[in-house]
């Protein structure tokens, strides 16, 4: 398989590969569409109790974990795929794919990053995520100017079904923070995993979450002890590489009393003709006075211009503000995936707890996104804010779906929701499906939504200043989405701005 579907341009002698690469990057096609040729270990195709056992065995899990998975699997067999989302995709054959794929070199778990297969390290290097313990993420323009102090980012790199390595573990340990792959956590910190796993997203929460509970292979685990401000940003980078393989990762973040952590998640996949499944579960537990920021730039392969291939992204993300004054902030930039089904939610149980959700979802060509959030207000004086920007171009469908629920006891609570949609072209669709449930009168709920097209006057102004049409659209869209972009950590904000431009390329005219 070639790394690119587009034909390689003729390269004159003396022009080095880097230049060609740079030009390719600028050409605006999906820039992470290459694959890594690496020998893989697969579990047999299909899904059965044996496969679930096998995954558990490969991860060297204790018996309670195997049982937990088997229970989930039995439950899943009785469930039906949800149909309510505004997405259409061919029936997924759950038996016709691999549920476990691990690079051969990972068979014996490397003790440190130095022992990791160079090919894997090169893969992440190429993605702009070097697994070296360096101060800043490479490949981000402008990052050099940032103050170097405190801009460290620890990375857990997940390649298909396994975590390849986690950086800065030692330094984090000094602060008391546990940051490792979930498989390692199950072995090393069973008491924490037992206590929290499935406590936010129960095993039988929904079809995809239950599937994930049965077959999740790896993911990240974070525990921040009471009163600790995590000394650096944590991040996980998910890469799907193997063909016909689903990625099912599970992330569990626990912010104990009075702690703080900012967590980033990135994801990419090679360009392939057949669609691939990704069903993740993220659980966040936030105790009293703790705060978690969770930012995602989701850039899975979106399929080609004709809608061939791409990732089917079915994700359950939920944060549980258990303690009083707990705070969570979800920020997501959704530019990839052929199909997105994702609703990062906040359970505001503690009094005075806060949930925020900032989202940009960009769909182009044949992409479909059905995404939004749920804010469940249970505690008194809880606050939530939702800002969602949907941008639809080409033949794409983009839906915001959300729930704001004020329970009778959540008195004096407050919600503000704003969801705006922008349509570029007359073949696409933008939809808004908000649910509002208010069950007490001292709470205030406000919801606003607008749908419009790129303003002609703004376009004219930009064009008149000499910008071409695509540049102008990118600028206007960036302006439209600025409230969300501003909520992102700097590394992501820059990447996101570029992504906005790239995703919309070719959508004008």
């Amino acid at each position, binding site marked *: 398989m070639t790394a690119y579907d587009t034909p390689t341009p003729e390269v004159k002698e003396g022009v080095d590969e880097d230049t060609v690469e740079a030009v390719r990057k600028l050409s605006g096609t999906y820039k992470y569409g290459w694959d890594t040729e690496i020998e893989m270990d697969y579990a047999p195709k299909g899904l059965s109790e044996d496969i679930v056992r096998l995954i558990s065995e490969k991860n060297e899990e204790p018996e309670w974990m195997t049982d937990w998975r088997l229970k989930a699997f039995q439950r899943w067999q009785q469930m039906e795929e949800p149909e309510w989302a505004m997405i259409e995709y061919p029936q997924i054959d759950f038996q016709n794919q691999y549920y476990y794929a691990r690079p051969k070199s990972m068979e014996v778990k490397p003790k440190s990053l130095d022992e990791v297969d160079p090919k894997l390290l090169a893969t992440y290097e190429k993605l702009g995520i070097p697994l070296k313990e360096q101060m800043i993420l490479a490949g981000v323009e402008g990052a050099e100017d940032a103050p170097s102090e405190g801009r460290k980012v620890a990375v857990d790199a997940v390649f298909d079904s396994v975590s390849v390595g986690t950086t800065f573990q030692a330094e984090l340990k000094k602060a008391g923070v546990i940051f490792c792959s979930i498989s390692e956590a199950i072995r090393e910190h069973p008491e924490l995993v037992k206590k929290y796993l499935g406590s936010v997203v129960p095993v039988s929460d929904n079809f995809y979450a239950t599937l994930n509970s049965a077959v999740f292979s790896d993911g990240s685990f974070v525990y921040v002890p009471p009163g600790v401000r995590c000394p650096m940003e944590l991040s996980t980078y998910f890469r799907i590489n193997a063909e016909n393989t689903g990625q099912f990762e599970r992330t569990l973040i626990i912010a104990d009393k009075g702690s703080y952590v900012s967590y980033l998640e990135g994801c990419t996949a090679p360009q392939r003709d057949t669609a691939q499944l990704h069903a993740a579960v993220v659980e966040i537990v936030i105790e009293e006075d703790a705060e978690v920021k969770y930012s995602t730039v989701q850039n899975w392969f979106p399929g080609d211009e004709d809608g061939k291939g791409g990732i089917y992204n079915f994700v359950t993300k939920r944060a549980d503000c258990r303690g009083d004054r707990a705070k969570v902030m979800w920020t997501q930039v959704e530019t990839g995936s052929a199909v997105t089904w994702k609703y990062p939610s906040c359970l505001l149980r503690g009094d005075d707890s806060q949930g925020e959700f900032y989202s940009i979802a960009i769909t182009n060509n044949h992409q479909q996104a059905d995404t939004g959030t749920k804010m469940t207000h249970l505690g008194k004086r809880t606050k939530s804010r939702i800002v969602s920007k949907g941008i639809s171009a080409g033949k794409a469908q983009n839906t915001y779906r959300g729930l704001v629920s004020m329970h009778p006891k959540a008195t004096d609570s407050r919600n503000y929701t704003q969801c705006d949609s922008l349509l570029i072209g007359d073949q*696409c669709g933008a939809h808004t499906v908000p649910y*509002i449930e*208010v*069950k*007490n009168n001292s709470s205030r*709920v406000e*919801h606003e939504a*607008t*749908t*419009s097209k790129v303003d002609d006057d703004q376009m004219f102004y930009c064009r008149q200043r000499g910008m071409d049409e695509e540049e102008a659209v990118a600028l206007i869209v960036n302006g439209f989405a600025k409230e969300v972009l501003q909520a992102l950590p700097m590394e992501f904000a820059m990447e996101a701005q570029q992504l906005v431009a790239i995703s919309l390329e070719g959508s004008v005219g």
Partner: protein
Amino acid sequence: MARADLIARRQEAAATRAETMTLPEGAAWATEAREAARARLLKMGLPTRRDEYWKWTNPESLIAAEAPTAAVFDADEAPIFDEIDRLRIVFTDGVFDAEASDPLEMAGIEIARLSDAARADIHWARDLYGTLEARGHASVERPFAAFNTAYATDGVVIRVTGTAARPVNLVYRHASDGSDVILHHLVKVEEGAELTLLETGPAAARFSGGLEVEVADGATFRHVRTQGRDHERREVTGVFARLGTESTFQSFTLTANGKLTRNEVVIELTGDDAVAHVAGAALGDGKDFHHDDTVFITHDAVNCESRQVFKKVLRNGATGIFQGKILVKQGAQKTDGYQISQSLLLDDDAQFLAKPELEIYADDVACSHGSTSGAIDEDALFYLRSRGVPHREATNLLTLAFVAEALEEIDDEALAEALRDRLAGWLERHSS
């Protein structure tokens, strides 16, 4: 429960219900239309709480073979719109009352009872009966509307060719505790013609109302309805309208109390430059009050405008629901769609549930919706109190102001005034 089982259960419920009913007799075309509606009903089945559009409203009491009884309520006030010169058509517990009604005659319009029209072999009603209702299931199934078309025992059919000088008022009287009434009306407003239709009164212990309105090019249809104050009344209505080029449709509903009200309005804008305004105000006091507005507006033409303005005042455990949707089809450019749903919760037990939806497939549109819920503005209340307005009066004043935005959707000042009086009267009785 598996999806297939749910559908089977719904269909079974419909079949059981249908067995207790008989199709009214009529000419071949009418029987055909009623049979088709029954077939639609049997296929869709009757809803349960597990249906997306019934998750907030329990349809059980609407489905039950026997209507739950509802005591006739003595409103002790003059019938609304009494001051207004209008043509009255009275139904008492769903039975046409010739004596109480005015002669069915007016210049520029043709009025007949449905039961008569359905017996005529040749009648214009043939092309309309059940047609718009059948189209109304395109995006969301509305089984109660199909039920209504199949089993409606009477109603009126109105064809308007000129400008109706007076409004036509359908007066629904409720006389017995166990009345279970199904009425279906047709209105065809021909090119350039105009009609105002008023519907007033509680109708029955359980009332199923159907109204199909064809508004031709350049025509205007205005609809003002009040649903009576009977506390135990249950009601499910469906208004289905299709709008031609440069036509206008306006509908306003005032609901005061009643145990269960579900008002569905389904509008299709099929001609360019058409305008549709749907508005409503609901006032509910007590745990027993459950009010549900479900509106679906489809834009299928260029340069059309639609507005939805819904206000609910809720207290003492009352529940208000708004499910509104604007669908803009591909090619329906220059659409101006606006939707606002607001609730005023006068105390802590009341609840408001809303789902304001947009589904848009055209890029050159301006669509927006807003939804708010909350208590009376403390600052405004403080201001009035500081000017010496007593608390109760100040609250009523602010409540009236809150509802006013919906009332402004009514063009006719006399009609709006009459509704305002009713509102004030309700507030007077129900404020503490």
